[in-house]
């Protein structure tokens, strides 16, 4: 019964979406206020129905209703409640429902909080959002229906995969989806603006908060996925340039470019067609990612249902949505009024460089991900494009960007004094040089690349700090003045400083954790000791123990440093008899500076055990840095100027070069 309600609600949602997509769009074109007004309640209604549908599916999982095929295939009564719930989106059909729900959620948010949007723009935005929803809802109902019944219902579900019962793995998808589905909003805004034929500073101001929200969530989702890989997969790796990882990273890169490009459009009414294009591209990459995961076109450990017939549907959807929007772009973008003029050396110029490098980086990732497919399609053989390619091409593109990111915030609009700016960064030059030399010496004469990377990260961090200090006149005015200025700084300034500094931290941590990690693989017998990175690991042996649905062999390591006890580590090898599966659970001890990471392997049959011990310096700061980036985004979002009081178009049109009320 509940499943039928859920099914029915989904159909209603599709109908509402069809209405929401049609009437407001026509209404905006013909000036019919009543039809335009349909958009807001329709958005709420769509969210309501999809919410009911999602709720029904969740209910079916929670009560383990195995007459619902989706539940029977993807759940089990013995699963803890938390994982029954996460099982809802842990499969293809449920995840499509989650996709549709988040799409509707963003639509409803604009409907409820977009009161200051001009009615025509709002109507068009919501209508386009609805058309995207129509695609996903139709896809769900016609090819991926989660509410299909099984008759007779099995007694028990068939999936008790312990690997999926893990908080990191189970809960990173919703954040990822909030991220790249959230880019649909920027997309809808972009297409609506193209239809209107007008992109201006006000539009950019309206787009930015939605993009920030999506981008922040995407950052979190990607970080969570990487963090999970790190602690679960047993050798401390966290990024593999896997096609599906790339599928989430490309929208992030495009979204970052979009965020920055929108600033120029907002402040200077320039880079319009670029911002529009980036908004279209970011979401297009999200859609592309959806296609890649579900169509079987690329193999990946992450891949969902590899079903070519579903792939055809999604591809058709892609062609309509992306092809349609890019066609509209080709026709309408040339007609957008060019905005403010600026010199090449200026903040605008810096942001053009930002756009260029991020887009090039994103294109590189796309090229590498799709190249094997392209070659195979042309019957030119099979190559594989792995981490060495991406590391070799992506790195050189990102490094100049980080250098520029320290300089950019100092540049003034329209025309900037570059030598002057560089003069203000003298301290940053000094710090960079010291870090570069120091780390090169520490790499004992290997490649200078890590040292260069660390130097650049230091450059960015110091530059961000100097810029912030400059804003509040730290050390150049009495502290009370600085404090006062700090209190009145716009939140977006804080957001930028935090985010830029955090990026530097993440980059530095990644480099350090890769270059200076210590790995020790050995065969150890109980009582033996080994020294790794200054820590002494004493192997106490292995005990058998039984868990709720597994039997395990648990090893014990006593870790000391200079005789001082630090911790005890208990890595395990678990066997799940019902799945006939063995997993290894690493034991990790996290300090502020590093992770100690221990894994046990196979016994040699003579009392010895194969063990792996790692010292991973600065790894915790990769995750902390990522959280800081999200904090930066959140802080920016609380900036008063982004919410209420978005400038009325009349004021913006008052002068040719008029800027919105705050600089």
């Amino acid at each position, binding site marked *: 019964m509940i499943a039928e309600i859920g099914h029915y609600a989904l159909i209603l949602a599709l109908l509402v979406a069809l209405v929401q997509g049609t009437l407001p769009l026509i209404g905006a074109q013909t000036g019919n206020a009543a039809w335009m007004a349909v958009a807001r309640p329709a958005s709420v209604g769509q969210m309501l129905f999809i919410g009911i549908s999602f709720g029904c599916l969740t209910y079916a999982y929670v009560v383990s209703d195995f007459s619902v095929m989706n539940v029977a295939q993807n759940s089990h009564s013995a699963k803890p409640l938390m994982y029954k719930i996460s099982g809802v989106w842990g499969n293809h059909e449920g995840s499509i429902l989650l996709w549709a729900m988040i799409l509707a959620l963003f639509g409803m948010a604009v409907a409820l909080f977009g009161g200051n949007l001009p009615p025509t723009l709002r109507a068009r935005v919501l209508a386009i959002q609805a058309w995207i929803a129509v695609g996903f809802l139709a896809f769900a109902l016609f090819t991926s229906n989660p509410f299909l019944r099984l008759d007779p219902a099995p007694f028990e579900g068939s999936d008790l995969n312990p690997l999926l019962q893990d908080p990191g793995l189970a809960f990173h998808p919703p954040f990822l989806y909030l991220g790249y589905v959230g880019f649909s909003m920027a997309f809808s805004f972009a297409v609506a603006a193209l239809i209107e034929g007008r992109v201006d500073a006000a539009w950019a101001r309206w787009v930015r908060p939605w993009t920030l929200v999506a981008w922040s969530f995407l950052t979190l989702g990607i970080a969570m996925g990487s963090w999970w890989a790190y602690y679960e997969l047993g050798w401390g790796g966290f990024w593999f340039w896997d096609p599906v990882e790339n599928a989430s990273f490309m929208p992030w890169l495009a979204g970052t470019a979009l965020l920055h490009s929108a600033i120029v459009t907002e402040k200077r009414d320039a880079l319009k*067609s670029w911002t529009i*294009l980036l908004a*279209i*591209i970011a979401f*297009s990459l999200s859609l*592309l990612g959806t*296609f890649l995961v579900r*169509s*079987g*076109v*690329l*193999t990946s450990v992450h891949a969902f249902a590899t079903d*070519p017939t579903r*792939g*055809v549907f999604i*591809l058709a959807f*892609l*062609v309509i949505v*992306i*092809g349609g929007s*890019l*066609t509209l*772009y*080709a026709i309408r*973008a*040339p007609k957008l009024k060019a905005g403010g003029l600026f010199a090449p050396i200026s903040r605008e110029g810096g942001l053009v460089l930002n756009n260029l490098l991020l887009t090039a980086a994103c294109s590189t990732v796309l090229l590498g991900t*799709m190249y*094997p*497919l*392209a070659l*195979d*399609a042309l019957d030119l*053989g*099979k190559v594989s494009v792995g981490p060495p390619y991406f590391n070799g091409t992506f790195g050189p593109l990102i490094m100049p960007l980080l250098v520029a990111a320290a300089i950019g915030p100092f540049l003034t609009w329209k025309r900037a004094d570059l030598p002057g700016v560089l003069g203000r960064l003298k301290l940053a030059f000094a710090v960079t040089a010291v870090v570069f030399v120091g780390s090169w010496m520490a790499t004992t004469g290997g490649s200078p690349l890590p040292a260069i990377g660390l130097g650049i990260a230091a450059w960015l961090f110091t530059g961000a700090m100097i810029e912030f200090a400059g804003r509040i006149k730290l050390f150049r005015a009495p502290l009370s003045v600085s404090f006062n200025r700090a209190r009145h700084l716009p939140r977006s300034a804080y957001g930028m400083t935090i985010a830029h500094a955090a990026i530097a931290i993440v980059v530095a941590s990644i480099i350090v954790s890769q270059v200076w990690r210590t790995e020790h693989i050995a065969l150890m017998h109980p009582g033996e000791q080994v020294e790794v990175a200054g820590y002494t690991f004493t192997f106490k042996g292995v005990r058998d123990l039984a868990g709720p649905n597994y039997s395990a062999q648990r090893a014990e390591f006593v870790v000391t440093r200079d005789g001082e006890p630090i911790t005890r580590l208990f890595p395990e090898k678990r066997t799940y008899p019902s799945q006939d599966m063995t997993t290894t659970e690493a034991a990790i001890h996290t300090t502020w500076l590093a992770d100690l990471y221990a894994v046990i392997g196979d016994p040699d049959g003579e009392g010895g055990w194969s063990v792996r011990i790692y010292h991973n310096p600065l790894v915790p700061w990769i995750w902390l840095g990522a959280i800081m980036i999200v904090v930066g985004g959140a802080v920016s979002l609380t900036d008063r100027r982004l919410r209420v009081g978005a400038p009325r178009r009349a004021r913006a049109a008052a002068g040719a070069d008029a800027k919105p009320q705050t600089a």
Partner: protein
Amino acid sequence: MSAVQLRYMLPLSLFVVLAVGLGVGLTRDPSQIPSVLIDQDVPRFSLGPVEGRARGLASADLEGEVRLVNFFASWCVACRVEHPLLNRLTEDGTVPVYGINYKDEPHDARRWLDRMGDPYVRSGADHDGRVGIDWGVYGLPETFIIDRNGRIVYKHIGPIRPEDLEQTILPLIEELRG
């Protein structure tokens, strides 16, 4: 349209190329790795017999007529699916089938063949998998068509289904026989 306006078409054009590529990609299987040994001589090897059999298999045995070489193992689930087909090929005398038992326990292999039938004219036991590596084997089952001159002509990845036999393998064998 001026060059300036042409550049607005660029994203769309790139997307069209991408979409075509994806469309073609839907018809391919990315997990299949084609053999690089096509048109090369069979790798040199010499394997002892599978338990319970007198003769093993060596590369020298693979010259003179068109043959199939099938990599199998008792632990390979998909091999069970194709095995009846191989049995029929031998019963009907369609084409001689030779086997290489890949990374298997002697007892297990023998029991499996006893139960499933032994279609192999000769078979060899590749205990450590080195011969498999020489043939570029990465998963089971894999079946190779060898021509008269002892050259690898075709590799079939995965279990042989009736349609594979009818549409690809048998026609190719016919062609090779002249």
